[in-house]
Each structure stands twice: as C-alpha cells, then as structure tokens.
C-alpha cells in the first residue's frame, strides 16, 4: 500500500498505548531498569522510554523465543503420545518503539525461517505481531545501519513508524495494512500530517563501507589469512549471536519430567566449538577462526546469495556485547579493502 503520513501528539501517544493494551494486546516496549534499557512485556506507559540508542538484547525473542516448545509428549506403558502445541494461542503482540534496524531484523529472520520450508512457529508469531517503529535521533560509534542499506528513519519492517519532531510531537508513517488497521481503530488520536520533514530529526549515521563490496570480496576470501589474524582474541562465546537480531541458529532439545516432556527449540551459536562436531569426533569447523569466518560469511555472503537478504542490520549489538572487542564494523571495513 501507499505510505500515509499523519501526526500524533505526544499526549495522544499514551492514549494509543493504553488503547492497544486495553484491546488485549501484549505490548513489548523498552524501559530502563537497573540502569539498563531493555524491552519488557507489558510495562506501564510511564516507564516506557524513547531515548535509548540500543538495547543490549535484540527483539528476536518475540518471534524466535530463546526457548520454544515444539511438541509435548507423554510416555507410559502404552507407548508415546505426542501432542502438537496450539499455535492459535499465540497472543497478538505490539512491538512498541522498535528502532528501524530492529524492524528490519525481522525481515532477515523471515528470510531464514520462511525460505524453502515454512516454519509455522515463527510464522504464527510473526503474523500476530505489529511493529510500531521509532526512528533514531541519536546513535553511537557502533551503529552502522547506513552501511547495510538501512537508515535511522527506514520504514522497512515497521507497520507504523514514529519520528519525534522538533515540537515534541510525532510523525506517524503508516506503512502496512496492519498499521492502517491500528490507525483506523484509533482515528481520533491522529491528525493531519505535519509540514516538518522527518529527515531533519534523524541521527546522522555515516556510511562506512559498501556491503556489496564486502559480499563481492568474501566470495574469494575463504582462505584469506585475515580470519586467523583477526580472530585470535575471539574466545568463542555466543554473546554476539544471542544479542543479534538476525542470528537464527538453533538447537533442539528434549526435556522430560517423569512421564511427560517437551521438545524444545533453543538458541544456539555457530561460534561454539561443539556446534558442528560429529559423533565420530570429526569437527568441520575445528578452530575459532573458522567459526568467526562462518559468522561473517553467513551474514554477508551466504545469506545474500541464498536468502536474498543480508544477515546483518547494522545495530552494533554484537560489538557492544563482545567481551574481547571483536568489533564487527571494524572487521567489515577491513574486509571491504582486502584483496
């Protein structure tokens, strides 16, 4: 549909929030708790913050939970009974205040989960979710959305995108039908579009490399000494993958309590040494440099080729979370230049 522009006053924003909550939606919004900004379920409106640069964790938990129950089973003398989970019970969710990069992160996830075989768990959560995005007016030196084809006011992935204007009120861009439904249901809160353009109210994120160039370089860089040289300090934890909005590797585990049990899908990371190990003990990716290479290659070479999407949205979370300063931006800039 064609993009529609409207104005929503600061005071009306609260009314919209409450209306959505009253309508039985679960809301996932950023609040400051113990000095950290993170998204929480159903906070009160007074707690919600609009001033964060980036949360530590990504928002993928909403559609790809850190533990997802796939099936339930009971085992007794008569055999095993398997019950499917009821995907119709997925609650409708409003993601309130997701930055444009986070919204685009769902597109990257979608390109994995909906590629070839369609993952119904992911899909039902995705269908029940509305993303109310919030443009960024500030950034830090780990942000690089403009280098991966996004920008602090990108509409891609959001259903409605809010941008704070100089007056303190918000410009609402209605991007999808889902967004339009919300606006229609609360038409009294929206006013005619303001004259002020959103561009002046966005953070300035400098483009630092060309992702096309990186993708091109990676094609011939598998054996490059770059990987070993730049990953000696990597300690092989999964922090980068677990905070990443686009990382989707998972593990399947069974949990039993007495006669009943669940088959669970949990997050995993290609950075772990045991991720690929065979039963025989043979490990295709034996050392950390190979696993680090896999991480970059998957995001910037394999995904663009197979899934028609980059596996990175430039949020910089991995760089902030890394305990040993494996800065992805620094490495991508270097990869743009390698021969």
């Amino acid at each position, binding site marked *: 549909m064609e993009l529609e522009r409207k104005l929503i006053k600061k005071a009306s924003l609260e009314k919209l929030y409450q209306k959505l909550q009253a309508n039985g939606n679960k809301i996932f919004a950023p609040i400051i708790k113990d000095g950290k900004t993170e998204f929480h*379920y159903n906070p009160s409106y007074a707690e919600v913050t609009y001033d964060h640069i980036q949360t530590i964790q990504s928002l993928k938990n909403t559609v790809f*939970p850190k*533990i997802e*129950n796939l099936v339930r089973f009971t085992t007794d003398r008569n055999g095993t009974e398997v019950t499917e989970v009821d*995907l119709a019970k*997925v*609650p409708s969710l409003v993601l309130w205040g997701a930055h444009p990069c986070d919204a685009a992160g769902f597109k990257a996830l979608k390109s994995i989960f909906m590629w070839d075989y369609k993952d119904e768990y992911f899909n039902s959560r995705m269908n029940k979710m509305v993303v109310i995005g919030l443009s960024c007016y500030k950034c830090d030196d780990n942000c690089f959305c403009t280098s991966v084809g996004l920008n602090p006011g990108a509409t891609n992935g959001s259903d409605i995108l809010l941008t704070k204007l100089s007056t303190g009120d918000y410009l609402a861009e209605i991007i999808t039908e889902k967004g339009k439904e919300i606006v229609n249901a609360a038409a009294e809160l929206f006013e005619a579009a303001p004259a002020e353009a959103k561009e002046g109210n966005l953070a300035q994120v400098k483009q630092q490399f060309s992702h096309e160039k990186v993708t091109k370089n990676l094609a011939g860089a598998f054996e490059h000494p770059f990987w070993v040289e730049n990953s000696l300090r990597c300690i092989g934890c999964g922090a980068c993958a677990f905070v990443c909005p686009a990382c989707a590797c998972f593990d399947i585990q069974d949990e039993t*309590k*007495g006669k009943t049990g669940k088959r669970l899908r949990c997050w995993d990371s290609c950075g772990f040494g045991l991720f690929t190990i065979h039963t025989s003990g043979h490990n295709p990716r034996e050392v950390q440099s190979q696993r680090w290479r896999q991480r970059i290659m998957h995001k910037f070479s394999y995904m663009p080729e197979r899934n028609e999407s980059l596996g990175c949205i430039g949020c910089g979370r991995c760089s902030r979370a890394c305990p040993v300063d494996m800065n992805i931006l620094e490495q991508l800039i270097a990869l743009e230049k390698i021969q």
Partner: protein
Amino acid sequence: MSEFEPKIVAFVCNWCTYAGADLTGTSRIKYAANVKIIRFPCTGRIDFMLLMKAFQNGADGIIVSGCHPNDCHYSSGNFHAKRRWMAFRELLDYMGVDVERITFSWVSAAEGARWAEIVNTTTEKLRKLGPYTNYQNLVKSGIEEEL
C-alpha cells in the same frame, strides 16, 4: 487436610549406611516411609549435581550418608566427600537453597537404630518446613510463552 508428607531421597554408600539401613529393617525397627534410598559405591561417588537432580524431580529433602571417617571401604572416599559437601553447602546457602533440607550423616553398618533416628528426625523437620515450593517453582517456570 492430611499432614504433609515430605518426599526424601537418601544417597547412601554401599558399605556402611546401606548396610546400616538394612540392619534397621532386619532388626524390625520402624521408621518413616518417606525416604527413597539410592545406593552408591561410596559417598565419594555422589556428584553434587545429583542432589540438585533430586530437587529438580520434586524431592523436598535429601539425606546423604556414608561411612564414619576412617571407616571408608576405599579408605578416603568419605574424606573427599566431606570436603565436597563443606564447599557445596556454602555455595547452596549463598545461592539461597535451603540447606536445612539436606541432612549429612555418617551411619555405620552396625547403627541400624541410628539410621532410623536420622530418617525420623529429618522427616519431622521437613514436615515442619513444608514442601520445597521454591525449587519446584523454579523448575516449572521455564518458557515465557507456553502454547
């Protein structure tokens, strides 16, 4: 409402306490039926995580028991175990696990009556403490959104 009956798991060594518990039976001494005994070769073999496994699976209390110091069949297993329990008990306490729910004891093969007494006092103590809901809640609350 009937009185709460705690579920107790006893981890005992094969050579002393298990034989002791056997003696309790053959001497026809009655004691609380709340305890389920798991026999190990030695207290030194009892991994600390087994205690947590018992709590995970719904135990309200635990008894760990082996040979008296210097009586170990393997000469030093119980000394090793003692160190382990000394350290582990401090960790449990620090993390907020109720250490009152775990009884450590030395019971020899000749102490049938003593075994009965230990089981009885532990059961009595646990009846007062009630079910270990803290841990059971911890085990239950797994997934944010159950479908």
